[in-house]
């Protein structure tokens, strides 16, 4: 066909306006969203928003999703490693020829620098927890040493890390986003601005940060020289959209490619019921557990019979069915499905009559007044769940009121161990039971998360399990701990684990829900057509 100049002009202007209207159509770009600005790409300076670190940086080892809710540790920047027989010394052999985005070649010194930077008090890092097992880490954090004695570059490609005491989950921890590896020269030059702008961000990961507009968006571009091969996508756009209704409209008007239903949970039935969208739902279990905290420092929960009654008075299946459209499974322990060492725990029966008896035995034959707490800025799902629980437990004799302090007040009270029972969810940061047990039931966790479950045997066993090298015995210990914490102590109420649901535009391919069910993930393998 011969095109006249006028037709060419028309065609060109049509194409141009198409590109302007929908940039994703014009190029191989995936458009996703988050409800909050990530604040930084520096993984040492954040504890919750990891989309940037997971796509811009790599870690020595990576947690790869191997199936729904399942993962395995695979080599990352370290192509192999050895662990000494006493479980104290880890020797990592780095991959040769890995380049940072600025062209510099990765060396063992960069790894030592990265971990030392995290522990350097001048950094004011928030993720230091993951490295405190290294020998000399505490001294460095406290400013008593200028370097970390347990960190050594044996040569350009070999890093040796010595722990202060054996810690079985150490390798899993190194796959956490907080353990991302930086380049010494670049990061030192960037100082405290590292990760705040494209100019001050540099990693080895599959994407390069190209634009960062605070409270608006971040644009990432494919790293052509990525050591695992160039990513399928040319660009990744992360928009900050705080309002869930707006988010749904953006998705339906094709301005966003992936809708994370965690950000718009009330839309779940709509999408499951929609002929247009039901086949576009991508769902996966998450290694995370919803639970009720029980504060034993407050009456009547100082009595184990009341705690047991509280466990039995909640009809968990109804909450899964009514509030989450049946997209989840009941949990009875501390470890959710998918976590290393998981084994089904003794089921907790829903039995309001028995709960009532237990309350009477505990000296509350006419029922008891209690308070449930939630921070005011938590999303609607929390108040919906608290209200349903409030109605359920009334049958057993718990007359509950729900208080909603603002988040800062709530967190301050919790830190002091003084909140009322509250409902929350915890998803695995790394695939090891220590991430759950130590967080909630260690001596410091039990107080700072307002459990006050002062069981010295539990405290001792949690510390013991951290250092055990025999994995089978270690798993057995965690299962015994579960029976003690949930059964004997009745220290918390395990509720359920939920599926993580996304809706994706038809052109999005290879979208896999990550093993831990996080909203933050690597988009290295995702494609758009």
């Amino acid at each position, binding site marked *: 066909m011969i095109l006249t100049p006028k037709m060419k002009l028309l065609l060109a202007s049509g194409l141009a306006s198409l590109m302007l209207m929908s940039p994703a159509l014009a190029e191989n770009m995936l458009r996703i969203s988050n409800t909050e600005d990530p*604040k930084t790409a520096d993984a040492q300076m954040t504890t919750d928003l990891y989309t940037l670190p997971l796509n811009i940086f790599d870690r020595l080892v990576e947690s790869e999703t191997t199936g729904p809710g399942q993962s395995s540790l695979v080599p990352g920047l370290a192509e192999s490693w050895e662990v000494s027989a006493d479980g104290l010394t880890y020797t990592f052999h780095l991959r040769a020829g890995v380049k940072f985005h600025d062209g510099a070649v990765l060396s063992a010194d960069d790894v030592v620098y990265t971990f030392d930077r995290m522990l350097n008090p001048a950094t004011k890092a*928030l993720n230091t927890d993951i490295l405190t097992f290294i020998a000399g880490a505490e001294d460095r954090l406290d400013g008593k040493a200028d370097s970390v004695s347990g960190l050594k570059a044996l040569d350009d490609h070999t890093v040796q890390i010595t722990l202060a005491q054996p810690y079985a989950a150490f390798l899993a921890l190194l796959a956490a986003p907080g353990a991302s590896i930086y380049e010494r020269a670049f990061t030192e030059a960037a100082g405290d601005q590292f990760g705040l702008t494209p100019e001050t961000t540099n990693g080895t990961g599959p994407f390069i940060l190209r634009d960062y507009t605070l409270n608006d968006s971040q644009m990432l571009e494919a790293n052509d020289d990525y050591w695992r091969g160039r990513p399928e996508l040319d660009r990744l756009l992360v928009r900050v959209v705080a309002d869930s209704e707006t988010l749904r*409209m*953006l998705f339906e008007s094709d301005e966003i490619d992936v809708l994370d239903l965690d950000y718009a949970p009330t839309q779940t039935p709509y999408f499951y019921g929609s002929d247009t969208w039901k086949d576009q739902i991508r769902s996966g279990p998450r290694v995370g557990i919803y639970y009720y905290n029980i504060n034993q420092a407050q009456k009547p929960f100082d009595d184990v019979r009341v705690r047991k009654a509280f466990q039995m008075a909640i009809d968990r299946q109804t909450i899964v069915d009514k509030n989450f459209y049946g997209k989840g499974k009941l949990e009875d322990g501390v470890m959710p499905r998918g976590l290393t060492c998981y084994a089904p725990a003794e089921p907790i029966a829903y039995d309001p009559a028995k709960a009532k008896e237990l309350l009477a035995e505990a000296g509350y034959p006419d029922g008891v007044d209690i308070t449930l707490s939630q921070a005011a800025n938590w999303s609607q799902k929390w108040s919906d769940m608290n209200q349903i629980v409030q109605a359920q437990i009334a049958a057993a004799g718990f007359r509950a009121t729900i208080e909603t302090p603002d988040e*800062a007040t709530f967190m301050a009270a919790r830190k002091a161990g003084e909140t009322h029972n509250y409902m929350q969810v915890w998803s695995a940061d790394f695939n090891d039971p220590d991430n759950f047990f130590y967080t909630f039931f260690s001596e410091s966790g039990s107080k700072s998360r307002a459990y006050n479950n002062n069981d010295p045997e539990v405290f001792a066993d949690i510390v013991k399990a951290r250092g055990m090298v025999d994995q089978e015995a270690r798993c057995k210990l965690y299962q015994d701990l579960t029976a003690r914490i949930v059964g004997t102590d009745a220290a918390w109420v395990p509720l359920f684990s939920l599926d993580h649901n996304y809706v994706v535009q038809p052109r999005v391919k290879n979208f896999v829900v990550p093993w831990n069910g996080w909203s933050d993930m690597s988009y290295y393998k995702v494609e758009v057509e």
Partner: protein
Amino acid sequence: MLMFALRRILVSIPVLIGITMILFIMLNVVPGDPVALMMKEHASPDVIARVRAQMHLDDPMIVRYFRFLANALQGDLGNSIKLNRPVTDLLLKAFPNTLMLAVCAALVSWVIGIPAGVLSAVRRDSLIDRFFMGFSLLGVSMPVFWSALLLQYIFAMQLRLLPVSGFYGWKYMILPAIVLGWSSAGVIARLTRSSLLEVMRHDYIRTARAKGLRETGVITRHALKNALIPVVTIMAIQVAGLLSGAVITESIFSIPGVGRITVNAISSRDMPLLQGAVLFATVLVILGNLVADILYSVLDPRIRAQMKKDA
């Protein structure tokens, strides 16, 4: 006039210092730890204690306050705790977005509000009056988030004429400007109407009519100039309010402006950022009032005469 403006600016300095002091005390009285809030569910007591000390958050309040004041006097509002960026930079980057939204919204509200108010007053109790007053009542009483969702649904989802949200060009400004402008237009229309009706009762209007001027001339040349005096005051203060951040509108339409920064600073107890944002808003409100007073004197010769006498 210059003396008057200068005096007003000087008087506002103690106001500014007073506000920073009240804010500082209030933020220290209410519970909440910025470091714990940054770490959210992952808050670990050891790390919180360490990072608080590193950020000097454990220093006595009075020390922190005077440190802030001394730096602020040198133009340094400090660094945001949560965002780790200079507060001045954050505010200056967000302000153009808020300014654009405020100007567009103000234009919408004036273009709709003033003519609607005038028409309603001139055709008092007519169908037009009822329509405009109903329209403005709707604007005043409808929550911004509701009108925003409604307009997004109609113009972005159904008609596909405008984008849902974002901030990437003039097209993205239309819906938020209408949403925000509509609620202000309601106030302006009602005020213009009542003020015009009041003025129309005065003797000089009767005189103007008696000397044979056309009704349009009476209204535009004589009545409106006087009727707009209270409206101008409201307009100036409204613009100052809009500039200090239209929180909900900025959130719904994902506009990275001052309002969102302020709300985030409050919820995360980011003291330096909040101090900066409040100072910024205070300066704008003081300037808004000053502009209103100056406009007053331009419109009302009696006030101009009073100013000269005072000076």
